[in-house]
């Protein structure tokens, strides 16, 4: 069951990664035309992604919270015994960053729901980029830890 949830957690994270990255690129590096794949990627309507990204963030974090005890009892103990302090610390940071991101979701929703007013564009860009960075960090750390025995030959 935990393996199934872990795979589902990873798959949701992949979808979220795609959605939030697409939105972040569209708001930080927008394009007016759709000539070529790069400009097409940048020219999407970022607001379309907001609700899906929030739902995916909440679902991924909830699933992470459900499988977290397995990590805490089994995996973290193994990492500590193997003296992989950086790996343990990376995960500790991941859980704190995810929590900070959770608190930003209502603001993120608000900034994307209404048309850009004077002064709100920098906040929209900043909040989206912060959430994007959190999701990328969490994804990479989770992915490396999930495969740490194979990656480091343990």
């Amino acid at each position, binding site marked *: 069951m935990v393996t199934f949830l872990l795979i589902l957690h990873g798959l949701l994270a992949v979808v979220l990664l795609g959605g939030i990255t697409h939105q972040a690129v569209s708001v930080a590096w927008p394009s007016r035309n759709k000539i070529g794949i790069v400009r097409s990627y940048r020219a999407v309507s970022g607001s379309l992604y907001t609700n899906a990204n929030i739902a995916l963030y909440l679902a991924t974090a909830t699933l992470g919270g459900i499988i977290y005890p397995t990590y805490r009892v089994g995996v973290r103990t193994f990492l500590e015994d193997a003296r992989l302090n950086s790996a343990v610390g990376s995960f500790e940071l991941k859980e704190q960053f995810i929590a900070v991101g959770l*608190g930003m979701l209502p*603001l993120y929703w608000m*900034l994307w729901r209404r048309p850009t007013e004077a002064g709100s564009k920098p906040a929209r860009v900043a909040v989206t980029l912060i959430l994007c960075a959190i999701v990328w960090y969490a994804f990479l750390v989770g992915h490396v830890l999930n495969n740490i025995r194979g990656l480091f030959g343990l």
Partner: protein
Amino acid sequence: MSTEKVFPIFAAAFAVIYVLAVQYNWALFTYHPKIGEWQWLAQPAKNGPPMYWYGWLVTSLLGASAVSLISWPLTRRWSAQLWLGWMVPIVIVVIFIYLFRGFFLR
């Protein structure tokens, strides 16, 4: 009066209360994963490692909601300080990196 104006305050308050909750262990409850037991407030280890993360999240959620509620009447007169909602979380992220530096320097 729009509730949305408090969202930047909520984001900032959540981040600040969360880092304080982690640093001073203000967990509203503790989970003991090895025996599947929940207890109110921060409790010491009991046959296996305790988990405080869920408790910290709920502490921060309740605290940030309270701060937002208190500041709500003020937002009617003042414009929403959007920068609070992203600048404060960035500072908190940097503080977390500092607090957890020991893992990477050992």
